[in-house]
Structures are given as C-alpha cells and as structure tokens.
C-alpha cells in the first residue's frame, strides 16, 4: 500500500507541505508579473493585465460563494432532515 504511505508521509510533514504550497503561490504571482513568461495579449479586458488579478478574483470568488450561499441557506432554505416526512 504505497499510496497510503505517501499520504501519511505528507501528513507527518504537514508544516513543510504548507510552506511549500505558500512558496508556490508566491512564485505563481511573481511569474504572472513577468511579461516575458506570461504573455498577456490573450487577456480580454484591461484589469486582467494587473499581476495577480485572477488570484484576487479566485479568492474573492471563494469567499463570496461561501458567505452568500450560507446566508441563503440560513435564510430558511436549510431545514431538518425529516422536513418532508409526515
């Protein structure tokens, strides 16, 4: 069961994994700011030329989706599991 060993190895070194992931995120933003690597002539709108535009978009989208949905759910949409039982 090599896969399980790998998962457990990663879990044991969770701190390192998190640090590596954060480093990757920073690298992604840096690379996005270098026109020689990321050619922005494919962009459709002006704001997309700002480095890290889509990173901000992704994060805001995530927060927005979670908060709006939860607000919607708690406004009466979420009910007890036996709601439809008679």
């Amino acid at each position: 069961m090599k896969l399980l060993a790998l998962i457990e190895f990663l879990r044991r070194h969770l701190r390192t994994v998190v640090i590596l992931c954060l480093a990757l995120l920073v690298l992604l933003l840096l690379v996005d700011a270098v026109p020689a690597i990321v050619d922005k002539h494919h962009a459709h709108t002006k704001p997309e030329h700002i480095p890290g535009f889509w990173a901000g978009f992704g994060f805001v989208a995530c927060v927005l989706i979670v908060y709006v949905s939860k607000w919607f759910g708690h406004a009466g949409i979420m009910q007890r599991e036996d709601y439809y039982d008679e």
Partner: protein
Amino acid sequence: MSDLWLHPSLILLLGALLLPLLPERLRKGWLLLIPILTFARIVALAKGTFGVVHFLQFTLTFGRVDALSSVFAYIMGLMCILGTLYGLHVKRAVEHSVAWTYVAGSLGAIFAGDLLTLFLFWELMAFSSVFLIWFRGREQSLATGYRYLLVHVAGGVALLAGIILHYHATGSLAFNLFDVHHPDLAAWLIMTGFILNAAVPPLHAWLPDAYGEATFNGSVFMCAFTTKTAVYALIRGFAGLEILTVLGVIMALYGVVYAVLENDSRRLLAYHIISQVGYMVAAVGLGTELAINGAVAHAFAHILYKGLLFMGCGSVLFMTGKSKFTDLGGLYAKMPWTFAFTLIGGLSISAFPLFSGFVSKSMIVQAGFEEHKLWVGFLLMLASAGTFLHTGLKVPYFIWFGKNHCAKETWERAAEPPWNMIAAMAVTSFLCIFIGCYTPYLYRMLPYPVDYEPYTSYHVSETLQILLFTAVGFFLLIKKLEPEAKISLDLDWPYRIGGRAFLWLAKKPVQFIDTFVGEIYRVGGLVPLMVTARLSAVFDNSVIDGAVDGFANAFRSLGGRLRSAQRGALQESLTVAFGLGAVLVLLLVLFLNVFAR
C-alpha cells in the same frame, strides 16, 4: 446503402433482453461483450442517413450519422462500457438490463433524424432509468422514483405537444435547427421538454432528488446520459437561441450555491452536474462554432469526470452504506485509491491544467469573451472557483480527511471496493488525464475544425491563480464549510408539498361537499325516490335482473381468471408492462430496419 443497417441500440436492447435468460456463469462475459460490441458498432458507423422508414404518413429516420451525433454516440458508448464494468459484480441481471435499455434510449435519441423517433427513445430513457432509482430498495426510493417519472412525463408531454404543433404547422417531422430568432409556440414547447431533461432551473429539482437516491452504480449511468442527451438535442435544435445563454449562466451559479449547503456527497455532485451543464447550455445559447465545439468537448469530458466522481462516491456508499459527510470522514486510511481516483475526477471537473476539464471548459469561456459578453465570461469563471471549492476540495476533504464522523460499524466496513470498481475508476482516470494532455484526441472528433490552443502561458497562469487562491479561501474558511446535517429546500418543494395539499383537498373539502350533497339528496330526494323505486322494483325484478345476473356472472369468472394472473405489487406489474413495451419497441425497430431500403 446496405439493406440492413444495424442500429447500435439494437445490440444493447437484445443484450438486455437475453441477459436474464443466460446462466449465471456466462453473464460476466456477456456484460463485458455487449457494451464493447455496441461501442465497436458506433465507431464503425459510416456517415450518412440510414434506417429511413415510411410509417403511415410519417418519414422516420433511425440513423442520422454526422459529426455531431457521432461524437455524442462515441462517448455514450464508452461510458456504457465503463459503467457496466463498474457494476459488474451486481448479481441482479435486470439491473444491468434496465441500464442498457436506458443507454439504448440515449443512443436512439442521438441518432434520431426526426422528432417522432426522438420522442420514442426520449421516453424510453425516462421509463428505464426510473428503475435505477427503484432498485435502491429504500422506502423513500419508491417515492423519489415516482416523482422522477412524473416530472419526466410532464416534460415528455410538453415535447410531444410541441412536436404535434410543429408537424401541423410545417408538415414535416425532420429534426433540424428551429428558427431561433423567431421561435413559435411549438419551438418553445419542444425546448421546454429539452431543458427539463437538461435540468435547467426552474425545471431542475428532479436531478439531485433522483441521482442522490439511485443505486450506487445507477447514478454512474444516470449522471452521463439524460442531461447530455438533452445538451445534444439543444445543440441540434436551438444553437444560437439567446435566452439559453442567460439560463446557462444562472444554472452554473445555482448549482454552486446549493453545493455549499449540501451534506450528501452524491447530491452535491448532482448539483454540480447542473452547474457544469450550465456551461454547455450557455455555449448553445452563444451558438458560435467555438462555443458549439466547447459545448460538445465539455459534454464529452464531463461524462467521464462526472462518471468518475460518482464512481468514487458510489464506492464509499457501496462499501460503507453512507454518503453523507456527517457520517463519514478520515477514510484515507481505508480507501486511499478511491480517494486518489476521486481527486483526479475533482481536478478534472475543476479544469486543472493537464486534466480534461481544462481543455474543454475554457473553450466555452473563451467563446463568451470573443462574443464580447464579458458578463458570461466572468460569471462562468466565478462558477469555476465554486466548482473547485466543492468537488475538488470539499468532497475529498470531508470524506477522506477532516473530522472522522464514522460510526464504529461504518469504519469497520470501509475498505477498497472490488477489483472491477477499481478498474473502472482507473480507466476513467486515465482517460481524464489523457484528454487533458493529448488534446488532438478530443479536438479531432468535434463537429467544427478547431482553431484553439488551451495551453498558452496566460491561460495556464490564469487558471492556476484562480484555483489555488480558491484553495487558500477554502482552508481559511474551513470552519464555515463544516457539513451540517440538514437538507436544503429546492424547487421540488411546490410539488412535494403541493401533492400533500392535493391529498388534503381530496380528504377534507371534497369529502365535506360529498357528504353535504349526499345529505340534500337524502332529505329532498328520498320521498319521491321511494315512490319511484317501488314502481321500478316491479320492472327491475322481472326484466333487468335476469340480464344483469347473466353479465355479472360472466364478469366474475373473467375477474377471477385475471386475479390469479395479477400479483398485486405495482412495481412488478410495471416491470412486466415495461418489459413488454421494450420487446414491442425492439420488434418494431428490428422490423422497420430489416424492411428499410
């Protein structure tokens, strides 16, 4: 044109009919053979129009094989192999038979060149797939199945009404692009039938209801065929109908919102079908060559990764008996490979670079931007973030990691599923990655020439940023995303509660009126009635009785004979009726095909 054009559905229908008759030791081979033969037949089909039959005053076309129908049939045939392999160990033969009948319905609808043939196979799909829900065998499965059937029958009626009006107006049954700039009532009705099957809100609530309740492998079939056949029909009939763009974008976001609230993993995946089909419907509305290519490519990729996701969650359900996040958690130690395959499905649906969604979804978003509909592009991007949030992160995290909610019994039962389920997931995973890495495989099959390159530095950077920063949001808000043991009311509420109101109406006011009217009769009508009655009694005794007694005796003996043939269980009767219906359809198709020129 050869005399006999073998319809791929026919292979499946014959296979489905013979399967229960085979001895058990031959069944596994049969289960592998028939879908492969069907797929081989689909691949071997030459382009053209076949199986044209003149029936009464109608011209029926069973085989319109062109670029569009070929690619849809290809993926349906492939999914049939994978779905059957996944459920190979299921002993009850009739479960496989209904699944194959369902696929045959889908293939028949895809190859149909006229609206009547389309309708015939369309209904075959609904009436066979309902058994995939009923076979779950829970108390609520029965009610869910009936709701599913009622909704689809309603959609079928709209479709049929549209077809009749269309035939009346044009004198033709040919299934081609409708006048999307000036759609008439017939076109709207037909479109209503289509979008109901595509689960476009507000006609969508049947989907999570049914797919959350179907058997563990039933959902693997259901998630592929109904909605994607509808997408095919929409492309064929309504490409460029602008309202579909709006509806599609609403769908894409609607599914995302409900997925946040959902506690059942398979219902969550079902809401994400709505979201993903939203991309396709929006693309149909855009109607450009790039958009249609995108819709087809996305349907193709979607069938595989969504099948894979349902296989992963189905494996958990099959092994543990649970599908709710509040009953699961921490399973990585018991089912690591199932986790890995589900994660591949999650990365594919989220459109990670090198996975299938990346090369298909982006075509649709690109088409939106190219048509200068910025709102379409940005809102679909927003839905992408939501897709990764739930299917890529929430599903794997709360089943395989997170807080362990497993009961002792659940934990003990949890283990990797049988080899055939693993094999089906492994092959599907491979295909998801293959499509993402080697784009010509999919792009060559698309209906229009492809002038699109997904792997530009900008697109890769854009996608990675959105997805990875969504992941940051996920881990920061993880407390807020903890599953809650609740259900979310959706638009099935009106008919679930409406049904109850109808029963109440039948019980209370109607009964009251009935009693009231009865009372009036008793008081006001009794005296005159008694007099009349006495007079008529004389006539009755002498003349009528003789005749009635004769009839009654005849009916009683007939009833007695029928009673011994009737077993009482409604589903059993339906199964028999359905089986007979299938045989009739089969014979008709066979007959018409053999005698077609």
